[in-house]
């Protein structure tokens, strides 16, 4: 077990650390049997229409506990890659392993089980407008079959972490864009995922807010969660200073 305390010091301004423990997926990482590579992609191609490749022969790795940016111009294939990782699309060719799981081998029920081990954040927040902030977050736990008390405790914990515990009973549309995205991040983390995938999470936010959101991703990564963020915001990437995987016209051009 790694200690949460060290990695959570950065978050003191929110004072969110609960005695219950670190709100990240670190706890799930103790198993020694897990592979060291969380994302393992080999020769991945995706073609929507004939002759038009959204992705072409992509090979890449993202290690456990790593924070990587996926970047590239519009139409490069970033969203397509994330949708394949979320199993919303299936590859035309190639092999995709996530946490040792071959995505091609998953049946419908396996897909559900697989997705429960992920977290996702999108540009448009994807919150359910008629549910409160609290309900939006706890929803992801409910399907895991966790006992009720634990669900509530965990939900408060992550909401506190993103600094929104006082807005738990508000509805998403009563929140600012930055606050909504924080709710989405809380939901992505509530199930202690192995991997969090984010597609332009700061696309709708102004630069200051964008940095604040990035800090949340950094913090969750510091807690042990593997993070892959797609963005074309070069400045933001530079500011955060993490590994960058660049795509262009469906091919990897840089994987430093």
């Amino acid at each position, binding site marked *: 077990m790694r200690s949460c305390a060290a990695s959570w010091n950065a978050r003191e301004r929110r004072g969110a650390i609960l005695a219950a423990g670190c709100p990240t997926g670190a706890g799930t990482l103790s198993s020694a049997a897990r592979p060291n590579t969380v994302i393992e992609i080999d020769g991945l191609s995706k073609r929507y229409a004939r002759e038009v490749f959204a992705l072409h022969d992509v090979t890449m790795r993202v290690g456990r506990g790593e924070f990587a940016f996926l970047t590239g111009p519009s139409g490069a294939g970033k969203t397509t890659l994330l949708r394949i990782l979320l199993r919303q699309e299936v590859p035309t060719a190639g092999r995709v392993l996530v946490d040792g799981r071959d995505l091609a081998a998953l049946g*419908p029920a396996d897909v*559900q089980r697989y997705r429960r081990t992920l977290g996702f954040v999108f540009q448009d927040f*994807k919150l359910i407008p*008629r549910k409160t902030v609290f309900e939006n977050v706890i929803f992801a736990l409910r*399907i895991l079959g966790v006992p009720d008390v634990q669900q509530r405790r965990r939900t408060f914990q992550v909401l506190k972490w993103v600094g929104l515990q006082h807005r738990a009973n508000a509805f998403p549309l009563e929140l600012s864009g930055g606050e909504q995205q924080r709710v989405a991040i809380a939901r992505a983390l509530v199930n202690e995922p192995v991997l969090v995938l984010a597609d332009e999470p700061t696309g709708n936010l102004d630069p200051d807010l964008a940095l604040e959101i990035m800090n949340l991703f950094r913090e969750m990564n510091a807690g042990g969660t593997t993070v892959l963020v797609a963005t074309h915001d070069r400045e933001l990437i530079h500011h955060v200073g993490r590994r960058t995987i660049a795509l262009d016209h469906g091919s990897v051009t840089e994987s430093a």
Partner: protein
Amino acid sequence: MIAGLTYFVTEAWASVWRGRSAAILSVLTIAIAAFVLGLFLLVAGHVQRTVDQWSRSAELSVYLRDESTDGERAAVRNVLRATPSVAAVEFVSKTAALARFRKNFPELAPATDSAADNPLPASFEVRLGSDQSAAAVERLSARVSRMAGVADVRYDRRWLDRLVSLGNFVRWTGLLLAGVLVLAAALTVTNVVRLSLYARRDEIEIMELVGAPLSFIRGPFVCEGMIQGGLGAVVALALLRVALTLSAPRLSALAAGLFEVGRIEFLSGLSVAGLIVGGMAVGCLGGLVASRRIH
């Protein structure tokens, strides 16, 4: 399990309430179908009861040929007596028949006085037990009329036959009409559920992304159809009840002449339950069809 059901029902109810202008549409189409079905069941039920009552009070007259032998008469009497649905058998001789005729129709008596021969046949008058069906009487009558020495069997049959066919006609017309309406109602429910499916497509995507089981995603929609169906049936029954109460004075007078049933009665508890369950089943089907889109 219980928590899951509660979730489905509360989600579904919230959705019905949010989409109430569309939901009213499907509730009403279900209500119309259930109303028509209920009305026909009501009428057919009364016709049926009248038929039963008539056949219960009916008497069977077995007219004998003048030339029939004592042996043949004894055989007929034995068959009648051996039939469980027969309560009593009385022999009316030619002389007794004439005497009764003269008593019943005194103004025609002189005509029979002058007649050389007594034109009235001897007969067995059969009183039927109160529990036999029209079909059983029918069988008995057919059997006896084929026996030697029997000239004719009279029974208020024609009227009963007509009533029975009227009852069947009412029932089948009702079922056919209701069937068409139920189909329309099911289609409406399907489309209304589809509307709320569309309204909540983002929500469905989110549920899929967090890995919610299919039943968890579909459940509320199926339940939504079921609620609409059940509500429709309840509305129809309430309308039927009100309509019956309002028109009761006029209907009773009509019914007294038409049906041998004291008063108009509402549907039986079984029919009421059947209509509600049926409404829910149709709604459920609509919800299932609509939510098959989620996969």
